[in-house]
């Protein structure tokens, strides 16, 4: 399968682990030069999909292509066109930053003067040129993340896959990574970005695919996805008692299309917040529940996910 125009093309990708269907027929296309996000909660199948694209896992069925190279039939060419930034830091702590970059560059076929030049460029780009001789084991988490990303860019890949690169890091480093992604994209690189943070997908992406239980349940631009919930508004409420009591009181109210709880709060999707709010208060009062807080939000991807699945994105 060769398609010249798409950076990534995924057709009916499936992955079973025994009886568990981790990925159930996923299909999507990523245009060259765009940032495409795979958004979904933990366990949705995002990392498994990425692993198949990166050549780590063999698909049970279906195929995918990176810059026109099939991951099943032409894995070497596909991998050469691809840079992968793993979720966890995957560097050698006993080697210096420079030695790590040199090694990973060699694994992508770079040699000699070109490799040394690219390693120097990456060190400059990541702001670690003055620490290049220090062992990675002595670096802070944020610094390691930067080298982790840099190692995937040495060979000028046409497509970069970043698997939840901001999990578990401080806000400053997170900001730095998001800015780096945008900078890479501005240089013409196609980025496939997986995350369970709605705001990251919203900020970065040209297109977003929402994934749940191994399937893509919605795909489009941010505006197109928001349109799925129409004029509905999301309201987050907190109550003074067991939230389940309030959920049972509200879930069948007219004008309320979805009710779910996330931790101690209750999320609702309503047609008209002005009309729905009095009904919510009345129903709560009848159930001896006191509403302690109300937060009306503009429609966002969390609301879309709630609308599509009946669950919060971070359940």
């Amino acid at each position, binding site marked *: 399968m060769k398609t010249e125009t798409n950076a990534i093309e995924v057709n009916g990708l499936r992955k079973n682990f025994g009886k568990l269907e981790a990925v159930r027929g996923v299909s999507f296309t990523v245009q060259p030069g765009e940032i495409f996000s795979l958004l979904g909660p933990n366990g949705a199948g995002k990392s498994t999909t990425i692993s198949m694209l990166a050549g*780590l896992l063999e698909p049970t069925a279906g195929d995918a292509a990176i810059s026109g190279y099939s991951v099943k039939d032409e894995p*070497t060419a596909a991998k050469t066109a691809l840079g992968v930034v793993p979720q966890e830091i995957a560097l*050698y702590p006993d080697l210096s930053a420079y030695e790590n970059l040199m090694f990973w560059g060699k694994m992508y076929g770079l040699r000699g003067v070109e490799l040394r030049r690219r390693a120097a460029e990456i060190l400059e780009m990541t702001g670690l040129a003055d620490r290049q001789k220090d062992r990675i084991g002595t670096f802070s988490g944020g610094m390691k993340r930067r080298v982790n990303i840099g190692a995937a860019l040495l060979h000028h890949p046409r497509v970069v896959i970043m698997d939840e690169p901001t999990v578990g890091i401080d806000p400053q480093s997170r900001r730095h990574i998001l800015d780096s992604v945008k900078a890479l994209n501005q240089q013409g690189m196609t980025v496939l970005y997986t995350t369970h943070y709605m705001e990251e997908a919203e900020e970065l992406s040209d297109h977003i695919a929402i994934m749940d239980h191994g399937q893509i349940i919605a795909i489009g631009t941010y505006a197109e996805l928001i349109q799925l919930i129409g004029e509905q508004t999301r309201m987050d409420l907190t109550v003074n008692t067991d939230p389940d009591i309030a959920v049972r009181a509200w879930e069948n109210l007219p004008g309320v299309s979805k009710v779910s709880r996330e931790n101690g709060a209750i999320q609702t999707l309503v047609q008209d917040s002005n009309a729905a709010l009095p009904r919510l208060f009345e129903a709560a009062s009848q159930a001896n529940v006191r509403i302690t807080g109300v937060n009306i939000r503009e429609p966002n991807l969390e609301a879309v996910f709630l609308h599509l699945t009946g669950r919060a994105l971070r359940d």
Partner: protein
Amino acid sequence: MKILDIALKDLTQSFRSLFAVGMMFAAPLLITGLIYFAFGGLAGGEGGNDLPDLNIVIVNHDRPTGDNPRLGELLVGYLQEESMPDWLVAREMQDETTARAAVDQREAGVALIVPADFSDALLSADHPASLTLVQDPTLSIGPAVLADLVRLFVDGISGARIASEVISEQVQQAGVAVNSADLQDATAAYAAWYAELQRNLHHSGQPILAVRRPAAGGQASEDPIKTILGATMAGMVIFFNFFTGASAAQSILREQEEGTLARLFTTPAPRALILLGKFSAVFVMVLVQAVVLLAASALIFGINWGRPATVALLVSSLSLASTGFGILLLSGMQSLRQSGPVIGGVISGMGMMGGLFTAGMANLPKAFNTVTLFVPQGWAMRGWKLALAGAAPAEVLLTVLVLAGMGLAFFAIGAALFRRRLA
């Protein structure tokens, strides 16, 4: 080229680990060094056996009857002769209680009690003669040498007695009158000559008779202590080589847990090539270790490992075997944490089975020698013993082929298991 890159990366990481370097080189040299420190003076080339001084107290109760010579006095004189080793200092004491007390208080290492009927018993065929040695239990070599010397003396007397009886009989058969005084002189002279001969053969740095082994190829006979040291060091080389092979193969598990192995698999380098690169690093490490240990032990302990070609064959086949086994062993491990105790237990157990820890002992049961050949360590020990004895390459060919075959088989199975697991 990528195989080399991966191998070099692994080697760089390994040699930056102080612990790894210590276990590869320092530990085996240190253990053998301790043994050398305990016995190494004995392997010196200046003709002396440098044992610590052994003070002997002799209580001579010997009261021969009739015309029997005073063999007890003869024994005391024998042990006090100038030709005795310098480290052996003998003096007389009057009573057994004092002598035993001297040993208890560590003023003497051994008390030799000569009974009253010593001469009579030794010269008579009716009942055996006995001597009592009371020794400091912390001493072993000194008292053993003393017992040997006393045994030589007694053998000499017995031999002289038999010789005098034979001479007397033959002289009488020839019709010549036997003068008992002359006979006694001849007997005493024979006994003295015999004792001196045995002392020279077994306890002198320059024996008059050198025993050459058929496989020595012209080399002079080895000092027995050096032979023991060589076998011991060979055991250390083999044990630590297998230990290093398994420890080095742990890098696959380490990379799997740290995520770098998965990252390697996302690069264009084929998985088989990646694994081959890692396996190559293991082989190079064990090879370097063996070479360094052999060279260092030759320099430090004066061990002559044998013919270069034989040594080269054994080093290569040992490295193959230890690499292959390490890979096979690690292919069955699920985690680094699990692998640590397993490596220690398995390698130690196989080392015991292979006779590595009894390397310096001779005359082991035949069944034990057979059991050693069930493990590659046993074959390696067999080969190194032959090499130390000066064997030609052809003489170790079977050992080399078996070791190499085992290594390749282990490698093939281990590599297949890894590939399936990482698929």
